[in-house]
């Protein structure tokens, strides 16, 4: 069954849509959730929440790429779950480290951004990532989108861990400079 057929089922409120989604993208969503949560039970719940969220969003949404739509939802739900679960304490998995690294790009004790500033931030980050070199871009997203560990990235790209770390550090520095330049910091 192709993605368009699945999306049509969502739009037709056919519950088979969720089963088809689970069959086709269940493991993909679980991998994203587990990468953030590092907990089997929490990851399964995040994936189920993803299906529910997709059911509520379609309609009106009609994603161009169902896989990425589900992946984005899973990431968002998993991070939200992680934040609630580890409020005030340091949690396990890669996410704390990922967030710590990203905090180097911003000023400490900053306030949450408003609606307008959030839009500008999305555009700036999107343009920045697009402007990166191919390998740099993929390594950056593997770390900060998928929350992959440095070791996993190094293995996949056949790099040493130190090379991945230095590559990420240079990219973070460039991102910080970009955010300053755009007046976001």
């Amino acid at each position, binding site marked *: 069954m192709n993605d368009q057929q699945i999306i049509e089922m969502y739009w037709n409120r056919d519950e088979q849509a969720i089963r088809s989604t689970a069959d086709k993208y269940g493991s993909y969503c679980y991998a994203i959730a587990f990468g953030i949560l590092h907990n089997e039970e929490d990851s399964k719940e995040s994936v189920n929440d993803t299906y529910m969220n997709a059911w509520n969003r379609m309609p009106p949404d009609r994603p161009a790429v169902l896989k990425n739509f589900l*992946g984005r939802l899973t990431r968002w739900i998993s*991070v939200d779950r992680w*934040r609630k679960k580890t409020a005030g304490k340091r949690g396990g998995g890669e996410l704390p480290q990922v*967030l710590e690294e990203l905090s180097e790009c911003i*000023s400490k004790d900053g*306030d949450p951004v408003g609606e307008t500033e*959030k839009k500008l931030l999305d555009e700036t980050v999107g343009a920045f990532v697009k402007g990166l070199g191919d390998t740099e*871009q993929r390594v950056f997203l593997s770390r900060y989108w998928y929350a992959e560990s440095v070791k996993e990235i190094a293995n996949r790209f056949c790099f040493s861990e130190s090379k991945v770390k230095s590559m990420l550090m240079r990219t973070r520095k460039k991102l910080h400079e970009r955010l300053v330049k755009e007046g*976001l910091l």
Partner: protein
Amino acid sequence: MTVFDLFDSIGSIDDELIERAKQPKKPHKRLFLIIGSLAACSVILCMGLFLWRSRQNNTEPAITSSSVYETGGAVKSENLSSVFSGSGEESGVVTSGESPHTEASIETAPEETELEIYYTANKRLEHKTTKTAAVTAKVFELWKSENHIGKEVKLISADLSYSDSGTSVYEYSGVKVAAHQTSGTTVYTLKVTKNIENYCDASDSGLLFEALRKTMTGMSDIPPDDYELVLVDEDDGTLPEESENNRINPDEIRYNENGEILE
């Protein structure tokens, strides 16, 4: 701005980039370079091996073919066919003897083959099969050993003469000789120091020489048409006319008043 704002913004990156980030890494250009270099090295190696094998084959011609190669008598570099050197009454002579010449191109060790070494025992001719390189000097030494011949007996030369009628014979005066033979007879001349006679009893000297003949001519798949054993003095390895000291300089000839040559 909080770190979660930034993390969320990264989460809203284009689908295409997110998809691409998880794809396997493209082979690096350097990988192609390495693979290419390895492939080139392999090709060169194969070519080298092929040429080396070809050369090996060329240095081991069979006496049955029309080409005969001579190694200059260097013990290390002789092979089966080098037993015979191209020479003949009509075609010039090249002696294999104990010339010190060696040639780099034929330094590879000849392959070992099973040869029959004849010897005398109880006034009978016996033989034993030995696996050895078909090198004239080496076979001669083995023959000496089997027949209890002392070290003072030396092999001076082993020549193959071609009596060729009407066929061109190519001769090269250096170390290596290729003689193209299409017809005629071959005479194998073995020159050995005269002191070999010290090992001959009156009753079985013929048997000892027969053992020598059969051993030395048996080195080749095709034995020569004729065989000749020449016994020479130990210092007779060099022909007198080839010696610098024996040459007469016309300017140095002195005459007396009657026009007679003075000694």
